[in-house]
């Protein structure tokens, strides 16, 4: 379901940002790719959307997008949420590019809080929106100190956070933004993706760009980079598991959202990745209650 390119809105440069800004952001991306996991500072611009809605991601996308690209935007896995629709429309309008909801057809996927379930291919680029690029910020508020810790690879503090989880809750309870070590060197915040998606970062054939607009940082995972989630020897890293299957498509291997289906409070579990779910249903997979969400407007 790829929407053909539209004519660009008059009065805007291609993809909204001016050419010099896009060049500077591309230089930062190249620098960040050269040192995987390193937070490269960049001159973040004001964008026509509020901080926290993807100002970093939208700038990275604007910097790398070309007329031949096909753009997919997802928010929490879904293509049809307000933020995803707005950003997709923004680039259709200012860059006149084709947009899509289908993961394999996209060349650039801008995303917030999820990585698509469909395996990514070489040549695709994932742009993740990042609210807080510094994984140690909660424990060490000084930026000068965290930079030094990154420079000297002093990462004991990250395990203090995991230790606290186990001490208080008996297991590592960090469920999203789960810290990872990139290429055996830099510890990186993978943005608030569920830890379910952490294994997808490892050795991914796609280029992954993380951009934080308010914090003015870009970091990258070049294709086929080793990404290891931090853990303890006696408390190894684990991903979430559900004892339910998706109510719509019956998938048991995808990240499930709990949704209230009607006024009686009936709860169903459905795939968070709307494209993945739709593809499966189109291929004939049927869940236990395929009409569970039919009533929702």
């Amino acid at each position: 379901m790829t929407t053909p390119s539209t004519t660009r809105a008059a009065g805007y440069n291609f993809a909204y940002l001016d050419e010099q800004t896009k060049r500077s952001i591309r230089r930062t991306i190249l620098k960040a790719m050269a040192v995987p996991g390193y937070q490269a500072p960049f001159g973040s611009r004001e964008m026509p959307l509020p901080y926290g809605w993807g100002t970093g991601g939208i700038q990275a996308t604007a910097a790398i997008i070309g007329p031949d690209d096909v753009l997919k935007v997802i928010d929490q896995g879904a293509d049809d949420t307000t933020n995803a629709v707005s950003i997709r429309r923004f680039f259709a309008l200012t860059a006149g590019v084709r947009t899509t909801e289908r993961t394999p057809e996209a060349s650039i996927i801008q995303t917030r809080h999820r990585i698509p379930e469909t395996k990514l291919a070489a040549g695709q680029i994932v742009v993740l929106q990042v609210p807080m690029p510094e994984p140690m910020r909660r424990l060490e508020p000084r930026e000068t100190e965290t930079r030094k810790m990154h420079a000297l690879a002093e990462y004991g503090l990250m395990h203090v956070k995991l230790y606290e989880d186990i001490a208080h809750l008996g297991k590592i309870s960090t469920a999203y933004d789960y810290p990872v070590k990139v290429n055996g060197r830099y510890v990186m915040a993978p943005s608030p993706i569920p830890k379910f998606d952490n294994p997808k970062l490892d050795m991914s054939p796609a280029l992954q760009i993380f951009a934080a607009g308010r914090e003015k940082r870009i970091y990258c995972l070049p294709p086929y980079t080793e990404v290891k989630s931090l853990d303890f020897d006696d408390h190894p890293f684990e991903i979430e598991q559900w004892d339910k299957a998706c109510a719509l498509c019956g998938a048991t291997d995808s990240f499930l959202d709990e949704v209230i289906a009607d006024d009686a409070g009936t709860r169903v579990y459905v795939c968070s990745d709307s494209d993945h779910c739709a593809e499966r249903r189109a291929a004939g997979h049927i869940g236990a209650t395929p009409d569970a969400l039919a009533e929702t407007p």
Partner: protein
Amino acid sequence: MIDDLPDPLMRVTGLTKLYGRYVGCRDVSFALWPGEVLCVVGESGSGKTTLLNCLSGQLPLTAGKVEYDTRIDGVVDLATLSEAARRLLRRTDWGVVHQNPRDGLRMAVSAGANVGERLMAVGERHYGRIRGEALDWLGRVEIDGGRIDDLPATFSGGMQQRLQIARNLVTRPRLVFMDEPTGGLDVSVQARLLDLMRTLVTELSLSAVIVTHDLAVARLLAHRLMVMYRGEVVETGLTDQVLDDPHHAYTQLLVASILQP
């Protein structure tokens, strides 16, 4: 006789620290032997803390040098070490105990995590072992093991100070720097802390440089005493010798100022 002496753990030669036109400390020289406790006494502004920060590599020197006998590389001049090596030294072979425990503790994480942090920083990745070690150390500084998951903010001042000591000693350092460790504690808690420190220092054969203005602390803990006045060392010697027979006018004043109950 002389040949039997081991090499000093730390040797300081002509240490000078100037803040622009002002003198932090000037021309301080001494050697510290393994297992020795050295107290630096003097009034406020006499350069005690400046000296301590210079020794622990947290302030660059204006002149002079500080040599330390590291476990692996032998005697090194601290100024020649890279920052990474200095920081590693500071969290493995050294301990730094601050006057205000809030400066030395992480107030946002539990007591156990505070003690375990150094272990994790040097690569321990086994939760069970870290926790066991933390429990052991809480016991040694007389903190109830049941409070291992409590935040330090819920501890009393004396407990926080003891927690800070445990946090520093967990990597078995050979040298500990303490800046007014008993400041701000009431007298009975002070006495208990001093008692604990004396036990630990003997048990672990720690060397320590303790900065204090409290001569009672010095009398109890120190083997040797160094009296500072206006940035310079005016008198040095065995603790009892200095306190019982002070030579310098300032030391005499200091000793005479002790309140007799």
